[in-house]
């Protein structure tokens, strides 16, 4: 099975994030890490590839930096990577991201596209579904368990109250929840092998886009402001003098959880 896994490099969450005060873009250092939520998609891809004798190609868009985050996923065992790295992409909305990734995926022609459910820096959570639409693929989202047989992919789709069993014929797109599998740790052998694995870095022109198609110009959305989240207020203390349970029930009713 030929598998493509969409991954993203993000600034290390253990170091403080900074936003550019003018543009509101995340300032990206040279050293970035693989988005932790992507490790699950990579692991699912590797397991399916191992079971079917297939390959895993990483597909990514964003400032490449020193490609450390991409190499993390290559060290896990992915075979190659395509990273679209073009300054014109700065400020692209989620739909532009999906269009650019779709252009790469059309060239790669995978049987299965795997993505996380949302990135840990942008959190739009819409790219996988947009990709499926652009590529005309059935989209199996929020998988908490994945298996394949007879050219079909089966998932357990996580819902608010349980899960649904969904299946689709290949080719298809899959979004994987964190915790769906236990991602492997890269070995030293894997880290050394990742050094020489191919990483293509096409520009937007290579993919047939012009400057007006991408970045803020190509995006229908614009970030008009960024504000710090409000400080969390003090909690409310309910003192039990025999009737506290009624207070708590009333409170839960007020916030409409019961």
């Amino acid at each position, binding site marked *: 099975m030929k598998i493509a896994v969409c991954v993203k490099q993000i600034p290390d969450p253990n170091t403080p994030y900074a936003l550019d005060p003018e543009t509101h873009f995340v300032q990206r250092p040279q050293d970035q890490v693989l988005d932790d939520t992507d490790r699950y998609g990579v692991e699912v891809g590797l397991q399916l590839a191992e079971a079917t004798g297939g390959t895993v190609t990483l597909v990514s868009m964003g400032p490449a930096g020193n490609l450390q985050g991409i*190499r993390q996923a290559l060290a896990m065992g992915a075979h190659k990577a395509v990273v679209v790295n073009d300054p014109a992409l700065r400020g692209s909305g989620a739909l532009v991201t999906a269009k650019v990734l779709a252009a790469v995926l059309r060239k790669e022609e995978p049987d299965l596209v795997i993505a996380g459910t949302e990135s840990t820096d942008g959190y739009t959570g819409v790219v996988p579904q947009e990709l499926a639409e652009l590529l005309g693929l059935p989209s199996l989202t929020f998988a908490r368990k994945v298996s394949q047989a007879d050219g079909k992919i089966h998932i357990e789709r996580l819902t608010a109250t349980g899960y649904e069993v969904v299946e689709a014929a290949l080719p298809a797109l899959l979004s994987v929840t964190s915790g769906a599998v236990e991602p492997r740790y890269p070995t030293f*052998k894997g*880290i050394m092998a990742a050094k020489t694995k191919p990483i293509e870095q096409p520009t937007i022109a290579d993919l047939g886009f012009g400057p007006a198609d991408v970045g803020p110009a190509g995006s229908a959305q614009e970030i008009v402001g960024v504000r710090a989240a409000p400080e969390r207020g003090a909690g409310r203390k309910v003192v039990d003098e025999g009737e506290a349970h009624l207070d708590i029930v009333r409170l839960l009713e007020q916030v409409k959880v019961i």
Partner: protein
Amino acid sequence: MDFDPSPEHVAFRKVVREFAEAEIAPHAADWDREHHFPAEVVRRMGDLGLFGLPFPEEYGGSGSGLLTLCIAIEEVARVDASMAITLEAGVSLGANPIYRFGDEEQKARWLPDLVAGRTLGGFGLTEPEAGSDAGATRTRAVLDGDEWVINGEKVFITNSGTPLTALVTITALTGPREISSIIIPAGTPGFLVEPPYRKMGWRASDTHGLRFEDCRVPAANLLGERGRGFRQFLTILDHGRVAIAAMAVGIAQGCLEQSLAYAKERQAFGRPIGANQAVAFRCSDMAVAVEAARLLTYRAAQLADRGRPYRQEAAMAKLYASEIAVDATRHATQIFGGYGYVDETPVSRFYRDAKVLEIGEGTSEIQRLVIGRGLGLPL
């Protein structure tokens, strides 16, 4: 001269640190309290390739050398000495003698599993009355037809009685003043594993006394040339000493980090205790010692990886790193005060774990002897 690690070493250190933090650190105190050897975690270290770091790919290793192994051992020791010594002994004393001195048949039989961490090997050198004084070895192996018949006793043998243990390589007298190494497969009749020691530290690591009572193994289990046992274990110990130094660096680094965090957080007389020079300067001294020990260790490892002589450097690294590690645990315990003396903080465990680093694989006194002789002194 270049003190910068390669990007691959940086990435690898990060992976091992993540592994150690997630898979080992949360359980280390429990294993220590229960003297529990967690075989399943050792297997996971095997899956991560840690037991195969210095061995060639044909046996399933990554062919990366002693420096890479040192980084792995250091990161494991930073959270738990027991798992670090299990790894160190598994590689340096279990697999390395087979790799260095075994014939093709012995390597093909034992190495793939040892390298993958599916099995462990021990190295039986020390006896009740012979440690560094190997000339006093009493264990005898007598050739009877095409079998060695072994009688004797070994003490303090790491990884010799775990559920994963596949073999122990022992040194034995095979003639007058003739010491040879022989492979004893686990489960051989007459190979008796004593109950585990109750140790002050390294409690989750597996250590036993061994007895051999008319234990018979095939003549082909001789490891390397007959009569070369003494030279063989000197070579094995040089390698092991660098790895022990790396363990010491890891423990000292762990102490430094714990101490810094506590010194910044713990308040006394209205300010963090780290605002007092008595505490702050201890931390400064610890940081200098850790850095110096690390450099000595990496230098010895790099010499080994470049195929150059490193006996002197190995002894220096082992001596210095183990002594500063013991110092660091003492400083950390002092900084933690009462909390450093109870099980709830890792530093009390580190305090118990560090001491044996000045003893195992050649005591500090033996290291000074090796170094002194290397300096041309008539010791």
